[in-house]
Protein backbone atom coordinates (compact mmCIF):
# COMPACT_ATOMS: atom_id res chain seq x y z
CA UNK A 1 0.00 0.00 0.00
CA UNK A 2 1.31 3.45 -0.91
CA UNK A 3 1.56 6.05 1.82
CA UNK A 4 -1.45 8.26 2.56
CA UNK A 5 -1.46 11.98 3.19
CA UNK A 6 -0.47 11.65 6.83
CA UNK A 7 2.60 9.77 5.54
CA UNK A 8 1.58 6.86 7.75
CA UNK A 9 -0.35 4.59 5.43
CA UNK A 10 -3.87 3.82 4.36
CA UNK A 11 -5.44 3.25 7.78
CA UNK A 12 -4.11 6.51 9.24
CA UNK A 13 -5.18 8.49 6.16
CA UNK A 14 -8.69 7.27 6.89
CA UNK A 15 -8.44 8.23 10.58
CA UNK A 16 -8.00 11.90 9.62
CA UNK A 17 -10.86 11.70 7.14
CA UNK A 18 -13.09 10.03 9.75
CA UNK A 19 -12.38 12.59 12.50
CA UNK A 20 -12.84 15.71 10.38
CA UNK A 21 -15.76 14.61 8.23
CA UNK A 22 -17.40 13.37 11.45
CA UNK A 23 -17.00 16.70 13.27
CA UNK A 24 -18.05 18.72 10.21
CA UNK A 25 -21.44 17.05 9.94
CA UNK A 26 -21.76 15.56 13.45
CA UNK A 27 -24.30 17.97 14.93
CA UNK A 28 -26.64 17.75 11.95
CA UNK A 29 -26.24 13.95 11.89
CA UNK A 30 -27.16 13.83 15.56
CA UNK A 31 -30.39 15.72 14.79
CA UNK A 32 -31.11 13.45 11.80
CA UNK A 33 -30.45 10.23 13.75
CA UNK A 34 -32.40 11.29 16.85
CA UNK A 35 -35.43 12.48 14.91
CA UNK A 36 -35.26 9.50 12.58
CA UNK A 37 -35.25 7.07 15.52
CA UNK A 38 -38.16 8.91 17.16
CA UNK A 39 -40.05 8.86 13.83
CA UNK A 40 -40.46 5.09 14.10
CA UNK A 41 -43.15 6.09 16.61
CA UNK A 42 -44.58 8.84 14.42
CA UNK A 43 -48.16 7.52 14.58
CA UNK A 44 -47.98 6.78 18.30
CA UNK A 45 -46.69 10.30 19.02
CA UNK A 46 -49.51 11.78 16.94
CA UNK A 47 -52.01 9.69 18.90
CA UNK A 48 -50.43 10.88 22.16
CA UNK A 49 -50.52 14.49 20.92
CA UNK A 50 -54.27 14.28 20.30
CA UNK A 51 -55.72 12.74 23.47
CA UNK A 52 -59.18 13.90 22.33
CA UNK A 53 -59.53 10.89 20.00
CA UNK A 54 -59.02 7.21 20.73
CA UNK A 55 -57.75 4.26 18.72
CA UNK A 56 -59.44 3.35 15.44
CA UNK A 57 -60.76 -0.20 15.62
CA UNK A 58 -62.95 -0.57 12.57
CA UNK A 59 -61.82 0.79 9.21
CA UNK A 60 -65.18 0.30 7.52
CA UNK A 61 -67.04 2.34 10.16
CA UNK A 62 -64.62 5.22 9.65
CA UNK A 63 -64.78 4.96 5.85
CA UNK A 64 -68.59 4.93 5.81
CA UNK A 65 -68.67 7.86 8.23
CA UNK A 66 -66.22 9.81 6.08
CA UNK A 67 -68.29 9.25 2.92
CA UNK A 68 -71.50 10.24 4.73
CA UNK A 69 -69.80 13.43 5.96
CA UNK A 70 -68.58 14.34 2.45
CA UNK A 71 -72.01 13.50 0.99
CA UNK A 72 -73.60 15.93 3.45
CA UNK A 73 -71.07 18.78 3.24
CA UNK A 74 -69.73 18.68 -0.35
CA UNK A 75 -72.16 16.78 -2.58
CA UNK A 76 -71.23 18.83 -5.66
CA UNK A 77 -67.45 18.65 -5.30
CA UNK A 78 -65.27 17.54 -8.22
CA UNK A 79 -63.41 15.08 -6.04
CA UNK A 80 -63.35 13.72 -2.48
CA UNK A 81 -60.39 12.31 -0.69
CA UNK A 82 -60.24 10.22 2.48
CA UNK A 83 -56.94 9.58 4.24
CA UNK A 84 -57.40 6.44 6.30
CA UNK A 85 -55.41 5.49 9.39
CA UNK A 86 -53.41 2.27 9.64
CA UNK A 87 -53.56 0.03 12.76
CA UNK A 88 -51.27 2.36 14.68
CA UNK A 89 -52.92 5.67 13.79
CA UNK A 90 -56.23 7.20 14.72
CA UNK A 91 -58.96 9.04 12.88
CA UNK A 92 -59.42 9.62 9.15
CA UNK A 93 -59.10 12.98 7.40
CA UNK A 94 -61.44 14.03 4.62
CA UNK A 95 -60.76 16.76 2.09
CA UNK A 96 -62.55 17.75 -1.09
CA UNK A 97 -61.91 19.82 -4.19
CA UNK A 98 -64.54 22.11 -5.71
CA UNK A 99 -65.06 22.11 -9.46
CA UNK A 100 -62.51 24.25 -11.29
CA UNK A 101 -60.16 24.46 -8.31
CA UNK A 102 -56.66 23.02 -8.00
CA UNK A 103 -55.86 20.55 -5.21
CA UNK A 104 -53.98 21.77 -2.14
CA UNK A 105 -50.64 19.96 -2.26
CA UNK A 106 -48.86 21.35 0.78
CA UNK A 107 -49.86 22.99 4.01
CA UNK A 108 -53.27 23.30 5.59
CA UNK A 109 -56.26 22.36 3.48
CA UNK A 110 -59.25 24.45 4.66
CA UNK A 111 -61.64 21.63 3.67
CA UNK A 112 -59.95 19.11 5.99
CA UNK A 113 -62.19 17.41 8.57
CA UNK A 114 -61.15 14.85 11.13
CA UNK A 115 -63.36 11.75 11.37
CA UNK A 116 -63.19 9.98 14.71
CA UNK A 117 -63.11 6.20 15.36
CA UNK A 118 -66.94 6.20 15.60
CA UNK A 119 -67.20 7.56 12.04
CA UNK A 120 -68.44 11.00 13.17
CA UNK A 121 -66.70 14.34 12.51
CA UNK A 122 -64.69 15.38 15.52
CA UNK A 123 -62.22 18.02 16.65
CA UNK A 124 -58.81 17.57 18.19
CA UNK A 125 -56.16 20.09 19.18
CA UNK A 126 -54.25 21.63 16.30
CA UNK A 127 -50.87 19.88 16.26
CA UNK A 128 -48.35 18.34 13.88
CA UNK A 129 -47.86 15.51 16.37
CA UNK A 130 -45.25 12.95 15.35
CA UNK A 131 -45.00 14.53 11.90
CA UNK A 132 -42.90 17.34 13.35
CA UNK A 133 -39.99 14.97 14.10
CA UNK A 134 -40.52 13.08 10.85
CA UNK A 135 -40.29 16.28 8.78
CA UNK A 136 -37.37 17.64 10.78
CA UNK A 137 -35.53 14.39 10.00
CA UNK A 138 -35.14 15.23 6.29
CA UNK A 139 -36.55 18.74 5.64
CA UNK A 140 -35.06 20.55 8.67
CA UNK A 141 -37.12 23.69 9.45
CA UNK A 142 -37.43 27.45 8.76
CA UNK A 143 -35.88 27.15 5.31
CA UNK A 144 -37.07 26.08 1.88
CA UNK A 145 -37.59 22.31 1.88
CA UNK A 146 -35.08 21.84 -0.93
CA UNK A 147 -32.28 23.51 1.10
CA UNK A 148 -33.03 21.30 4.06
CA UNK A 149 -32.91 18.22 1.87
CA UNK A 150 -29.56 19.22 0.39
CA UNK A 151 -28.05 19.83 3.84
CA UNK A 152 -29.38 16.47 5.06
CA UNK A 153 -28.14 14.75 1.88
CA UNK A 154 -24.68 16.28 2.17
CA UNK A 155 -24.38 15.21 5.81
CA UNK A 156 -25.72 11.71 5.05
CA UNK A 157 -23.19 11.32 2.25
CA UNK A 158 -20.42 12.10 4.72
CA UNK A 159 -22.01 9.72 7.19
CA UNK A 160 -21.54 7.04 4.54
CA UNK A 161 -17.92 8.16 4.07
CA UNK A 162 -17.45 8.15 7.87
CA UNK A 163 -18.83 4.58 8.07
CA UNK A 164 -16.45 3.32 5.38
CA UNK A 165 -13.43 5.20 6.73
CA UNK A 166 -14.41 4.22 10.30
CA UNK A 167 -14.42 0.53 9.41
CA UNK A 168 -11.00 0.91 7.76
CA UNK A 169 -9.62 2.84 10.76
CA UNK A 170 -10.71 0.24 13.31
CA UNK A 171 -8.36 -2.65 12.92
CA UNK A 172 -9.94 -4.90 15.53
CA UNK A 173 -13.56 -4.72 14.51
CA UNK A 174 -14.50 -8.02 16.18
CA UNK A 175 -12.62 -7.27 19.41
CA UNK A 176 -14.24 -3.80 19.56
CA UNK A 177 -17.56 -5.55 19.83
CA UNK A 178 -16.66 -6.99 23.25
CA UNK A 179 -14.50 -4.19 24.60
CA UNK A 180 -15.71 -1.66 27.10
CA UNK A 181 -13.47 -0.14 29.75
CA UNK A 182 -15.67 2.18 31.84
CA UNK A 183 -14.49 5.07 33.99
CA UNK A 184 -11.30 5.67 31.98
CA UNK A 185 -12.15 9.02 30.34
CA UNK A 186 -11.16 9.23 26.69
CA UNK A 187 -10.58 5.45 26.48
CA UNK A 188 -14.17 4.75 27.63
CA UNK A 189 -15.63 7.21 25.13
CA UNK A 190 -13.68 5.51 22.33
CA UNK A 191 -14.77 2.04 23.48
CA UNK A 192 -18.38 3.21 23.70
CA UNK A 193 -18.23 4.86 20.28
CA UNK A 194 -16.75 1.69 18.74
CA UNK A 195 -19.17 -0.67 20.46
CA UNK A 196 -22.22 1.35 19.41
CA UNK A 197 -20.91 1.70 15.86
CA UNK A 198 -19.97 -1.96 15.44
CA UNK A 199 -22.99 -3.37 17.27
CA UNK A 200 -25.44 -1.81 14.84
CA UNK A 201 -23.08 -1.46 11.85
CA UNK A 202 -25.35 -3.30 9.40
CA UNK A 203 -28.18 -0.99 10.47
CA UNK A 204 -26.05 2.17 10.17
CA UNK A 205 -24.84 1.22 6.69
CA UNK A 206 -28.35 0.21 5.58
CA UNK A 207 -30.10 3.25 7.02
CA UNK A 208 -27.59 5.74 5.58
CA UNK A 209 -27.57 4.25 2.10
CA UNK A 210 -31.34 3.77 1.89
CA UNK A 211 -31.83 7.27 3.31
CA UNK A 212 -29.85 8.71 0.42
CA UNK A 213 -31.91 6.57 -1.97
CA UNK A 214 -35.22 8.06 -0.72
CA UNK A 215 -34.27 11.42 -2.27
CA UNK A 216 -31.76 10.17 -4.82
CA UNK A 217 -33.12 11.93 -7.90
CA UNK A 218 -32.60 15.29 -6.13
CA UNK A 219 -29.01 14.45 -5.18
CA UNK A 220 -27.91 12.66 -8.33
CA UNK A 221 -30.16 13.68 -11.22
CA UNK A 222 -27.61 12.62 -13.83
CA UNK A 223 -28.99 9.13 -14.45
CA UNK A 224 -32.33 10.74 -15.29
CA UNK A 225 -30.79 13.47 -17.46
CA UNK A 226 -28.79 10.82 -19.34
CA UNK A 227 -31.91 8.92 -20.39
CA UNK A 228 -34.85 11.36 -20.35
CA UNK A 229 -35.37 14.72 -22.07
CA UNK A 230 -37.05 16.19 -18.95
CA UNK A 231 -37.71 15.29 -15.32
CA UNK A 232 -41.42 15.25 -16.22
CA UNK A 233 -40.80 12.56 -18.85
CA UNK A 234 -39.06 10.45 -16.18
CA UNK A 235 -41.96 10.81 -13.75
CA UNK A 236 -44.46 10.02 -16.51
CA UNK A 237 -42.68 6.71 -17.00
CA UNK A 238 -41.87 5.85 -13.35
CA UNK A 239 -45.17 6.99 -11.81
CA UNK A 240 -47.80 7.47 -14.54
CA UNK A 241 -50.84 9.44 -13.42
CA UNK A 242 -54.44 8.49 -13.98
CA UNK A 243 -56.09 10.53 -16.71
CA UNK A 244 -58.89 12.74 -15.36
CA UNK A 245 -62.47 11.85 -16.32
CA UNK A 246 -65.11 14.44 -17.16
CA UNK A 247 -68.48 14.28 -15.38
CA UNK A 248 -71.42 13.43 -17.66
CA UNK A 249 -73.94 15.61 -15.82
CA UNK A 250 -76.26 12.60 -15.35
CA UNK A 251 -76.79 11.93 -11.65
CA UNK A 252 -76.22 8.41 -10.35
CA UNK A 253 -75.90 7.13 -6.78
CA UNK A 254 -72.51 6.06 -5.52
CA UNK A 255 -72.00 2.33 -5.13
CA UNK A 256 -71.77 0.81 -1.61
CA UNK A 257 -68.18 1.03 -0.32
CA UNK A 258 -68.30 -2.32 1.54
CA UNK A 259 -67.92 -4.60 -1.52
CA UNK A 260 -65.29 -2.22 -2.97
CA UNK A 261 -63.15 -2.60 0.18
CA UNK A 262 -63.67 -6.36 0.12
CA UNK A 263 -62.56 -6.62 -3.52
CA UNK A 264 -59.46 -4.53 -2.80
CA UNK A 265 -58.54 -6.75 0.16
CA UNK A 266 -58.89 -9.82 -2.08
CA UNK A 267 -56.75 -8.35 -4.88
CA UNK A 268 -54.09 -7.14 -2.43
CA UNK A 269 -53.83 -10.39 -0.41
CA UNK A 270 -55.54 -8.80 2.58
CA UNK A 271 -54.02 -5.35 2.04
CA UNK A 272 -56.00 -2.25 2.98
CA UNK A 273 -56.36 1.17 1.37
CA UNK A 274 -54.54 4.17 2.84
CA UNK A 275 -56.23 6.70 0.56
CA UNK A 276 -59.65 6.58 -1.06
CA UNK A 277 -60.33 9.14 -3.77
CA UNK A 278 -63.75 9.55 -5.31
CA UNK A 279 -63.88 11.55 -8.54
CA UNK A 280 -67.21 12.98 -9.79
CA UNK A 281 -69.24 11.74 -6.81
CA UNK A 282 -72.95 11.50 -7.59
CA UNK A 283 -72.33 11.50 -11.33
CA UNK A 284 -72.65 8.62 -13.79
CA UNK A 285 -68.92 8.97 -14.50
CA UNK A 286 -67.99 8.52 -10.82
CA UNK A 287 -64.73 6.71 -10.16
CA UNK A 288 -63.29 5.32 -6.91
CA UNK A 289 -59.50 5.12 -6.69
CA UNK A 290 -58.00 3.08 -3.84
CA UNK A 291 -54.32 3.53 -3.01
CA UNK A 292 -52.82 0.79 -0.86
CA UNK A 293 -51.47 1.85 2.51
CA UNK A 294 -47.73 1.64 3.18
CA UNK A 295 -47.97 -0.42 6.37
CA UNK A 296 -48.90 -3.78 4.85
CA UNK A 297 -46.05 -4.19 2.39
CA UNK A 298 -42.28 -3.77 2.37
CA UNK A 299 -41.85 -2.17 -1.05
CA UNK A 300 -42.68 1.52 -1.20
CA UNK A 301 -44.53 2.27 -4.40
CA UNK A 302 -47.91 2.77 -5.98
CA UNK A 303 -50.53 0.05 -5.72
CA UNK A 304 -53.78 1.41 -7.08
CA UNK A 305 -57.17 -0.03 -8.03
CA UNK A 306 -59.71 1.99 -9.98
CA UNK A 307 -63.38 1.09 -9.49
CA UNK A 308 -66.43 2.26 -11.39
CA UNK A 309 -68.17 4.52 -8.87
CA UNK A 310 -71.67 3.43 -9.88
CA UNK A 311 -71.36 -0.30 -10.60
CA UNK A 312 -68.48 -0.99 -8.23
CA UNK A 313 -66.64 -3.04 -10.89
CA UNK A 314 -62.84 -2.99 -11.16
CA UNK A 315 -61.78 -0.89 -14.13
CA UNK A 316 -57.99 -1.02 -13.89
CA UNK A 317 -55.18 -1.53 -11.42
CA UNK A 318 -51.47 -0.83 -11.12
CA UNK A 319 -48.67 -2.24 -8.97
CA UNK A 320 -44.91 -1.78 -9.25
CA UNK A 321 -43.58 -4.24 -11.84
CA UNK A 322 -40.31 -2.64 -12.96
CA UNK A 323 -37.33 -4.32 -11.26
CA UNK A 324 -35.68 -0.92 -10.80
CA UNK A 325 -38.76 0.57 -9.13
CA UNK A 326 -38.97 -2.45 -6.83
CA UNK A 327 -35.27 -2.13 -5.90
CA UNK A 328 -35.74 1.54 -5.09
CA UNK A 329 -39.08 0.94 -3.35
CA UNK A 330 -37.63 -1.92 -1.31
CA UNK A 331 -34.79 0.29 -0.09
CA UNK A 332 -37.16 3.14 0.80
CA UNK A 333 -39.50 0.68 2.52
CA UNK A 334 -36.61 -0.71 4.56
CA UNK A 335 -35.60 2.81 5.58
CA UNK A 336 -39.01 4.07 6.66
CA UNK A 337 -39.99 0.76 8.29
CA UNK A 338 -43.70 1.41 7.74
CA UNK A 339 -44.19 -2.31 7.22
CA UNK A 340 -42.43 -3.25 10.46
CA UNK A 341 -44.45 -5.21 13.04
CA UNK A 342 -43.85 -4.31 16.71
CA UNK A 343 -40.81 -6.51 17.43
CA UNK A 344 -38.97 -5.34 14.33
CA UNK A 345 -40.10 -1.75 14.97
CA UNK A 346 -38.46 -1.88 18.40
CA UNK A 347 -35.28 -3.25 16.82
CA UNK A 348 -35.29 -0.41 14.27
CA UNK A 349 -35.88 2.15 17.02
CA UNK A 350 -33.17 0.78 19.33
CA UNK A 351 -30.69 0.64 16.42
CA UNK A 352 -31.59 4.26 15.67
CA UNK A 353 -30.94 5.13 19.32
CA UNK A 354 -27.58 3.32 19.06
CA UNK A 355 -26.81 5.43 15.98
CA UNK A 356 -27.74 8.61 17.84
CA UNK A 357 -25.51 7.57 20.75
CA UNK A 358 -22.71 6.69 18.31
CA UNK A 359 -22.76 10.22 16.87
CA UNK A 360 -23.02 11.74 20.37
CA UNK A 361 -20.09 9.72 21.76
CA UNK A 362 -18.08 10.58 18.63
CA UNK A 363 -18.66 14.29 19.28
CA UNK A 364 -17.77 13.99 22.97
CA UNK A 365 -14.71 11.90 22.08
CA UNK A 366 -13.45 14.73 19.87
CA UNK A 367 -13.40 17.08 22.88
CA UNK A 368 -12.16 14.46 25.39
CA UNK A 369 -9.15 13.73 23.16
CA UNK A 370 -8.25 17.39 22.75
CA UNK A 371 -8.86 18.27 26.40
CA UNK A 372 -6.26 15.70 27.37
CA UNK A 373 -3.76 17.34 24.98
CA UNK A 374 -4.59 20.97 25.78
CA UNK A 375 -4.58 20.73 29.58
CA UNK A 376 -5.54 24.15 30.93
CA UNK A 377 -4.51 26.14 27.83
CA UNK A 378 -7.25 28.16 26.11
CA UNK A 379 -8.10 27.28 22.52
CA UNK A 380 -11.00 29.08 20.81
CA UNK A 381 -11.99 26.23 18.46
CA UNK A 382 -12.07 23.78 21.34
CA UNK A 383 -13.97 26.25 23.56
CA UNK A 384 -16.71 26.63 20.91
CA UNK A 385 -16.97 22.91 20.04
CA UNK A 386 -17.22 21.94 23.71
CA UNK A 387 -20.19 24.31 24.21
CA UNK A 388 -21.91 23.46 20.94
CA UNK A 389 -21.70 19.81 21.98
CA UNK A 390 -23.70 20.56 25.13
CA UNK A 391 -26.30 22.59 23.22
CA UNK A 392 -26.64 19.91 20.54
CA UNK A 393 -26.31 16.61 22.39
CA UNK A 394 -28.13 17.58 25.62
CA UNK A 395 -30.04 20.60 24.27
CA UNK A 396 -31.91 18.97 21.40
CA UNK A 397 -33.68 16.28 23.47
CA UNK A 398 -34.59 18.98 25.99
CA UNK A 399 -36.06 21.09 23.17
CA UNK A 400 -38.00 18.09 21.83
CA UNK A 401 -39.40 17.53 25.32
CA UNK A 402 -40.34 21.21 25.19
CA UNK A 403 -42.44 20.44 22.12
CA UNK A 404 -44.31 17.73 24.04
CA UNK A 405 -44.99 20.14 26.91
CA UNK A 406 -46.15 22.85 24.47
CA UNK A 407 -48.57 20.29 23.06
CA UNK A 408 -50.03 19.85 26.54
CA UNK A 409 -49.98 23.46 27.74
CA UNK A 410 -50.77 25.80 24.83
CA UNK A 411 -54.48 26.78 24.85
CA UNK A 412 -56.50 24.70 22.36
CA UNK A 413 -58.20 27.69 20.72
CA UNK A 414 -54.92 29.55 20.08
CA UNK A 415 -54.31 30.90 16.56
CA UNK A 416 -51.50 29.06 14.71
CA UNK A 417 -51.32 26.68 17.63
CA UNK A 418 -49.53 23.90 15.74
CA UNK A 419 -46.87 26.37 14.58
CA UNK A 420 -46.36 27.64 18.11
CA UNK A 421 -45.71 24.15 19.40
CA UNK A 422 -42.82 23.99 16.94
CA UNK A 423 -41.65 27.55 17.71
CA UNK A 424 -41.59 26.59 21.41
CA UNK A 425 -39.28 23.67 20.58
CA UNK A 426 -36.83 25.91 18.73
CA UNK A 427 -36.99 28.70 21.34
CA UNK A 428 -36.16 26.07 23.95
CA UNK A 429 -33.28 24.85 21.82
CA UNK A 430 -31.98 28.43 21.53
CA UNK A 431 -32.18 28.73 25.31
CA UNK A 432 -30.14 25.54 25.81
CA UNK A 433 -27.43 26.88 23.46
CA UNK A 434 -27.33 30.17 25.35
CA UNK A 435 -27.17 28.26 28.63
CA UNK A 436 -24.30 26.15 27.26
CA UNK A 437 -22.31 29.30 26.50
CA UNK A 438 -22.84 31.06 29.85
CA UNK A 439 -22.33 28.07 32.15
CA UNK A 440 -19.14 26.02 32.57
CA UNK A 441 -19.56 22.95 30.29
CA UNK A 442 -19.35 20.34 33.07
CA UNK A 443 -22.21 22.08 34.94
CA UNK A 444 -24.19 22.74 31.74
CA UNK A 445 -24.14 19.01 30.85
CA UNK A 446 -25.55 17.96 34.21
CA UNK A 447 -28.15 20.75 34.37
CA UNK A 448 -29.55 20.13 30.88
CA UNK A 449 -29.56 16.33 31.17
CA UNK A 450 -31.32 16.38 34.53
CA UNK A 451 -33.86 19.00 33.42
CA UNK A 452 -34.71 16.79 30.40
CA UNK A 453 -35.11 13.80 32.71
CA UNK A 454 -37.43 15.65 35.10
CA UNK A 455 -39.48 17.20 32.26
CA UNK A 456 -39.97 13.77 30.67
CA UNK A 457 -40.91 12.09 33.96
CA UNK A 458 -43.51 14.75 34.74
CA UNK A 459 -45.35 14.32 31.42
CA UNK A 460 -47.07 11.02 32.39
CA UNK A 461 -47.95 12.59 35.74
CA UNK A 462 -49.58 15.51 33.95
CA UNK A 463 -51.36 13.18 31.51
CA UNK A 464 -52.83 11.14 34.35
CA UNK A 465 -54.05 14.23 36.16
CA UNK A 466 -55.24 16.43 33.29
CA UNK A 467 -56.11 14.30 30.24
CA UNK A 468 -58.67 11.53 29.74
CA UNK A 469 -55.90 9.19 28.54
CA UNK A 470 -53.31 8.88 31.28
CA UNK A 471 -51.40 5.65 31.86
CA UNK A 472 -54.08 4.10 34.08
CA UNK A 473 -56.94 5.03 31.70
CA UNK A 474 -55.06 3.56 28.72
CA UNK A 475 -54.23 0.40 30.69
CA UNK A 476 -57.93 0.00 31.50
CA UNK A 477 -58.90 0.66 27.88
CA UNK A 478 -56.26 -1.79 26.62
CA UNK A 479 -54.81 0.96 24.42
CA UNK A 480 -51.31 -0.47 23.85
CA UNK A 481 -49.96 2.47 21.86
CA UNK A 482 -50.66 5.03 24.57
CA UNK A 483 -49.54 2.71 27.39
CA UNK A 484 -46.30 2.35 25.41
CA UNK A 485 -45.95 6.11 25.03
CA UNK A 486 -46.43 6.81 28.75
CA UNK A 487 -44.07 4.02 29.82
CA UNK A 488 -41.60 5.12 27.12
CA UNK A 489 -41.58 8.67 28.50
CA UNK A 490 -40.94 7.33 32.02
CA UNK A 491 -38.06 5.11 30.87
CA UNK A 492 -36.54 7.93 28.81
CA UNK A 493 -36.82 10.37 31.72
CA UNK A 494 -35.18 7.91 34.10
CA UNK A 495 -32.41 7.28 31.55
CA UNK A 496 -31.65 10.99 31.25
CA UNK A 497 -31.47 11.31 35.04
CA UNK A 498 -29.18 8.26 35.19
CA UNK A 499 -26.85 9.77 32.57
CA UNK A 500 -26.83 13.08 34.46
CA UNK A 501 -25.99 11.24 37.70
CA UNK A 502 -23.16 9.25 36.03
CA UNK A 503 -21.75 12.45 34.55
CA UNK A 504 -21.75 14.16 37.95
CA UNK A 505 -20.11 11.14 39.61
CA UNK A 506 -17.32 10.82 37.05
CA UNK A 507 -16.67 14.57 37.25
CA UNK A 508 -16.38 14.32 41.05
CA UNK A 509 -13.94 11.42 40.70
CA UNK A 510 -11.81 13.40 38.24
CA UNK A 511 -11.74 16.40 40.58
CA UNK A 512 -10.72 14.19 43.51
CA UNK A 513 -7.93 12.68 41.41
CA UNK A 514 -6.71 16.13 40.34
CA UNK A 515 -6.76 17.37 43.96
CA UNK A 516 -4.77 14.32 45.09
CA UNK A 517 -2.17 14.97 42.37
CA UNK A 518 -1.87 18.63 43.43
CA UNK A 519 -1.43 17.57 47.09
CA UNK A 520 1.20 15.06 46.08
CA UNK A 521 3.05 17.68 44.05
CA UNK A 522 2.90 20.16 46.99
CA UNK A 523 4.13 17.53 49.44
CA UNK A 524 7.08 16.78 47.18
CA UNK A 525 7.94 20.32 46.20
Amino acid at each position, binding site marked *: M*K*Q*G*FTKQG*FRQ*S*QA*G*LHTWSGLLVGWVLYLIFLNGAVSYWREEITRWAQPEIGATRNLETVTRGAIAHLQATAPKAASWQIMLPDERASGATTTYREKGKKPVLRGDDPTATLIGPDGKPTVARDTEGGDVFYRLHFDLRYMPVIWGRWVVGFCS*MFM*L*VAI*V*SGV*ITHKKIFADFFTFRPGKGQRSWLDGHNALAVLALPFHAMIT*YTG*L*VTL*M*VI*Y*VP*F*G*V*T*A*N*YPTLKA*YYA*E*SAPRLKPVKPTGQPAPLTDIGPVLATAARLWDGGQPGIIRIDNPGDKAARIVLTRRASDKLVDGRWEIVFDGVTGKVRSSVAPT*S*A*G*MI*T*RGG*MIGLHAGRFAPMTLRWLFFLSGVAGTAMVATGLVLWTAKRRAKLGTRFHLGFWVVERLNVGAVAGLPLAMTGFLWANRLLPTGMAHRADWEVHTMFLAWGATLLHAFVRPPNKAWIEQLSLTGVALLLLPVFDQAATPRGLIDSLKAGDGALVGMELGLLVLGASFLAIAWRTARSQAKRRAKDAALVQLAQARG
Partner: protein
Amino acid sequence: MKTADVANAKGRKGWDVTARIVLTIPGAYAVTAACTMLLARTIPASRLDATLWATIAAFGIYAALVVWVFAASSALRAGLVLLAIGAIAGLGAMWAA
Protein backbone atom coordinates in the same frame (compact mmCIF):
# COMPACT_ATOMS: atom_id res chain seq x y z
CA MET B 1 14.68 20.17 11.30
CA LYS B 2 14.88 23.95 11.13
CA THR B 3 11.89 26.13 12.06
CA ALA B 4 11.46 27.26 8.47
CA ASP B 5 11.31 23.64 7.32
CA VAL B 6 8.61 22.84 9.90
CA ALA B 7 6.57 25.85 8.77
CA ASN B 8 7.01 24.76 5.17
CA ALA B 9 5.95 21.21 5.94
CA LYS B 10 2.88 22.53 7.78
CA GLY B 11 2.02 24.84 4.87
CA ARG B 12 2.44 21.97 2.43
CA LYS B 13 0.20 19.75 4.51
CA GLY B 14 -2.46 22.46 4.79
CA TRP B 15 -2.38 22.95 1.04
CA ASP B 16 -2.53 19.21 0.50
CA VAL B 17 -5.64 18.81 2.68
CA THR B 18 -7.36 21.80 1.03
CA ALA B 19 -6.62 20.32 -2.39
CA ARG B 20 -8.09 16.97 -1.36
CA ILE B 21 -11.26 18.62 -0.01
CA VAL B 22 -11.73 20.43 -3.34
CA LEU B 23 -11.09 17.14 -5.14
CA THR B 24 -13.70 15.47 -2.92
CA ILE B 25 -16.61 17.88 -2.91
CA PRO B 26 -16.88 19.26 -6.44
CA GLY B 27 -14.30 16.88 -8.04
CA ALA B 28 -15.47 13.43 -7.00
CA TYR B 29 -19.10 14.57 -7.38
CA ALA B 30 -18.49 15.49 -11.03
CA VAL B 31 -16.77 12.16 -11.67
CA THR B 32 -19.70 10.37 -9.97
CA ALA B 33 -22.07 12.25 -12.29
CA ALA B 34 -20.14 11.04 -15.34
CA CYS B 35 -20.05 7.43 -14.06
CA THR B 36 -23.81 7.54 -13.30
CA MET B 37 -24.56 8.74 -16.83
CA LEU B 38 -22.38 6.02 -18.31
CA LEU B 39 -24.07 3.31 -16.20
CA ALA B 40 -27.57 4.68 -16.91
CA ARG B 41 -26.87 4.34 -20.63
CA THR B 42 -25.04 1.01 -20.61
CA ILE B 43 -26.72 -1.25 -18.01
CA PRO B 44 -28.50 -3.86 -20.16
CA ALA B 45 -32.05 -3.28 -18.88
CA SER B 46 -35.03 -1.09 -19.70
CA ARG B 47 -34.44 2.67 -19.72
CA LEU B 48 -36.22 3.08 -16.37
CA ASP B 49 -34.44 0.20 -14.60
CA ALA B 50 -31.02 1.26 -15.87
CA THR B 51 -31.65 4.85 -14.71
CA LEU B 52 -32.71 3.74 -11.23
CA TRP B 53 -29.91 1.21 -10.71
CA ALA B 54 -27.26 3.67 -11.90
CA THR B 55 -28.61 6.34 -9.53
CA ILE B 56 -28.67 3.89 -6.59
CA ALA B 57 -25.05 2.92 -7.35
CA ALA B 58 -23.94 6.59 -7.45
CA PHE B 59 -23.64 6.91 -3.65
CA GLY B 60 -21.35 3.88 -3.45
CA ILE B 61 -19.22 5.24 -6.27
CA TYR B 62 -18.92 8.63 -4.58
CA ALA B 63 -18.01 7.12 -1.18
CA ALA B 64 -15.33 4.93 -2.79
CA LEU B 65 -13.88 7.92 -4.68
CA VAL B 66 -13.68 10.04 -1.48
CA VAL B 67 -11.95 7.27 0.47
CA TRP B 68 -9.51 6.87 -2.40
CA VAL B 69 -8.81 10.64 -2.71
CA PHE B 70 -7.69 10.68 0.93
CA ALA B 71 -5.66 7.49 0.58
CA ALA B 72 -3.74 8.51 -2.57
CA SER B 73 -0.04 9.26 -2.07
CA SER B 74 -0.45 12.86 -3.23
CA ALA B 75 -3.25 15.27 -4.05
CA LEU B 76 -1.80 15.71 -7.54
CA ARG B 77 -1.96 11.99 -8.19
CA ALA B 78 -5.53 11.84 -6.83
CA GLY B 79 -6.50 14.73 -9.11
CA LEU B 80 -4.99 13.16 -12.22
CA VAL B 81 -6.65 9.79 -11.63
CA LEU B 82 -10.02 11.47 -10.95
CA LEU B 83 -9.62 13.42 -14.17
CA ALA B 84 -8.83 10.22 -16.09
CA ILE B 85 -11.84 8.31 -14.67
CA GLY B 86 -14.10 11.31 -15.30
CA ALA B 87 -12.88 11.70 -18.89
CA ILE B 88 -13.27 8.00 -19.71
CA ALA B 89 -16.75 7.81 -18.13
CA GLY B 90 -17.84 11.08 -19.73
CA LEU B 91 -16.67 10.09 -23.20
CA GLY B 92 -18.17 6.63 -22.75
CA ALA B 93 -21.52 8.15 -21.75
CA MET B 94 -21.46 10.43 -24.81
CA TRP B 95 -20.57 7.49 -27.06
CA ALA B 96 -23.38 5.39 -25.55
CA ALA B 97 -26.02 8.10 -26.14
